C-alpha cells in the first residue's frame, strides 16, 4: 500500500484532520 505521505494533497488533508482532533482534545482538557 502506498504511504499517504507520498501525496502532498493527502498530507495537507491529514494535517487539517489532525488540527480538528487537536482542538477537540484541547477543549476536552480545559476551560478557555
Amino acid at each position: 500500500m502506498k504511504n499517504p505521505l507520498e501525496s502532498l494533497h493527502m498530507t495537507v488533508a491529514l494535517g487539517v484532520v489532525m488540527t480538528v482532533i487537536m482542538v477537540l482534545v484541547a477543549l476536552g482538557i480545559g476551560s478557555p
Partner: protein
Amino acid sequence: MEFAEHLIRWFHVLSGVMWIGLLWYLNFVQVPTMAKIPDELKPAIGKHIAPAVLFWFRWSAASTVLFGLLLGGMQKELGNWLSIGLVDGSTTSALIGIAMWFGLIMAFNVWFVIWPKQKIALGIIDAPAEAKPAAARKAMLFSRTNTLLSIPMLYGMIAAQNPPF
C-alpha cells in the same frame, strides 16, 4: 522583563517563519518540481540550492525551539505547556502545549533524521551510491511528516494567543 519577552517572541516568530517557510518550499516547490527539471540542471539543486536551504532550515529550527523554550521559561508557563494543560486545566495551555510538542518532534526530525539522511542523499558525506535512494526517501517522508505536523502546530500557536472560543 516584559520587553525582553517581547523581543524573544519576535525572534521566535522570525525563526519559525524561516523554518516553516523553507519546509514548505521543500515540500510544495522543490520536491514536486525535481522530476520536471532537465537532468543537466539537477546538480544546481543538489549541489547548491538544497545544501543552502538545509543550512538555514536546520538552524532556524534550532533557534525557533530555543527562543520558544526561553519564552515559556520567562513567562513561567513551560510546565503548563509541557503538560499540555493537564496541570492548570486551561484550553490555552493545551493548545500551545500540543503545538509545542509537535514543534519539538519536528525539530528532532530535522536534526536527527532529515539532515543526516540528506547528507547521504546529496553526497555531502561519503556513502555507497546504493544507499542514496533509501536515504532520500526517508528524508522526504520525514519532511512530509513535518509538513503534516506544521498545520496543527501553527493553528495551536495562533489559537492559544487568539482563542476563537
